[in-house]
């Protein structure tokens, strides 16, 4: 397959997945409403703790937005696989002549791009309701930070999705991953405040560096070069791991006949 056809395939699958997500009330609620609820709760929590400075509010709003992005990534990638299994389309996708990892890339980025609306929504919410100042210390690095976060979260979503192809009850595991990642990735409180032994886990997670990059570009003292670089490095590592896992997963699915099980 030529690279232009591959790009077309991935972008088409991304578009189709966004369209599918927009037609789901559950995802509309998850993506459009829940980040606002997270943000409101966090604003009041930080206010009651005395944190009223503009930068603190921005820190909170970005964290709440990223919580929404992570939830959408988790459900949009893993949940989409579970949904397709239930609809009986998973077998057809795996059995298509196109490479399944390209299809997964498109599906994953559809979910992540959709999820980044959460960041925009929480920022607007903070400005309108809580008088949060909208500022960026490194405005030129902000688009790059957002791109780095999208790419790394997408790659992590793809890695998670590969396990969902194999196990029909993996959705339950996906639910378990939601709240712990909010904490461990420093979306609510800084990673530096977590126990020392938790930090290596944080460093392996895309949301940690994605959050670090975006916060660095908006309220950081130094340019978030390390965080942006880590996002791309982790994205490559996740993608390679997902490709290797997928080869194993698809072979096992053909051996164990799990693709059509509901």
């Amino acid at each position, binding site marked *: 397959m030529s690279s232009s056809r591959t790009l077309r395939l991935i972008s088409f*699958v991304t578009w189709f997945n966004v369209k599918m997500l927009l*037609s789901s009330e559950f995802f509309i609620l998850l993506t459009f409403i829940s980040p606002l609820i997270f943000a409101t709760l966090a604003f009041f929590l930080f206010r009651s703790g005395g944190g009223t400075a503009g930068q603190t509010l921005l820190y909170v709003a970005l964290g709440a937005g990223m919580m929404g992005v992570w939830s959408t990534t988790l459900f949009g990638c893993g949940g989409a696989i579970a949904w397709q299994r239930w*609809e*009986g*389309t998973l077998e*057809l996708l795996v*059995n298509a*002549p*196109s490479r399944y990892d390209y299809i997964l890339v498109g599906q994953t980025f559809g979910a992540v791009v959709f999820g980044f609306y959460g960041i925009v929504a929480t920022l607007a919410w903070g400005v309108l309701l809580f008088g949060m100042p909208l500022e960026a210390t490194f405005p030129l690095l902000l688009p790059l930070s957002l791109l780095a976060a999208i790419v790394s979260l997408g790659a992590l979503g793809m890695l998670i999705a590969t396990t969902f192809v194999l196990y029909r009850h993996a959705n339950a595991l996906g639910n378990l991953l939601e709240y712990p990642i909010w904490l461990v990735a420093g979306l609510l409180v800084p990673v530096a405040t977590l126990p020392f032994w938790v930090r290596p886990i944080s460093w392996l997670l895309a949301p940690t560096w994605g959050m670090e990059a975006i916060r660095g570009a908006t309220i950081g003292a130094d340019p978030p070069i390390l965080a942006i670089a880590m996002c791309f490095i982790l994205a490559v590592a996740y993608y390679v791991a997902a490709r290797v896992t997928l080869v194993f997963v698809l072979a096992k699915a*053909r051996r164990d006949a799990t693709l059509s099980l509901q």
Partner: protein
Amino acid sequence: MASAAANVPAIEAVDLVRTYQTHTGVLRRRPMTVDAVRGISFDVRAGELFGLLGPNGAGKTTTIKMLITLLLPTSGSARVMGFDVVRDTTAVRQRIGYVFGGDRGLYDRVSGVDNLRYFAELYGVEPSEQKRRIGALLELVGLTGRENEKVEGYSRGMRQRLHIARGLLHDPQVIFMDEPSIGLDPVGARELRHTVRSLVDAGKTVLLTTHYMFEADALCDRIAVINAGRIVALGTGSDLKDAIAERTIVEIETFGVTDEAVERLRGDADVSAINMEERDQSQILLVQSDRGAHITQRLLSLLGDTRVGKVVAREPTLEDAYVHLIATTGDDEARSARAASVQ
């Protein structure tokens, strides 16, 4: 690496075996092996419409899934258009279409045309070709004018037609249809048969599974009857009927027949097979015998007090041949296939 040659069979299966590992129990899980397909061999010529006929659980879908590369055979081998289904998966997938019956396999929340566009992309249909191809297929399956409606609002017949259009998007040489007429109303089923026939007339090879005898008889060039994971007969519809040509079928309409009465009939030395069809108020017993219509009076006496309606003696049909084959090959093997080896 294999290559497709002009005279190779479109589909070739050699001693295909497929076992599933499963378990019983919740707290004390006991592993269990189920033999779904137990050594199936057949070939399908290019341009042929080949039927796999068998009861539920006979191994039809498992066989198809091995042939379309979704399942690995436990042993044996298979080729489609000369390509090995285990090793040459991409080459096989580029040449086959897969259509199955029922409500699943479509994206309900988007329109029919969106489904087709999506799969056209996945099946590698050239972008410049997609619009023309989708339009032609919508026309072929009679969905023109309804393509922009969401699939969740489609009737079962419309969904089935959309399935067929999806399976034909990349103009495959071999089409696998797994019970495509299941759940369709008689008119929808007839239209489907017409579409299938037109595909074969256009030079496609079709492997069709069904448990509707008249469908297999009306459509298929050759039929393999599969039971408990094995092919128990293979030939044209006439060949299969010839196997019981000497038989007579006595159809007895009964009202409230008991299991004991049916067993008394089954125990008669001259009765070869019995099939029972439930109707609203009555049951139709289809009794096969080598003794012609002479046995009728004895059958009626064996039914005892059972209220009897219409009684007809007639020539056997393909359905009778099928019932005979399933009755004479199934019971012991089906049992052993299910409980093959509890370890």
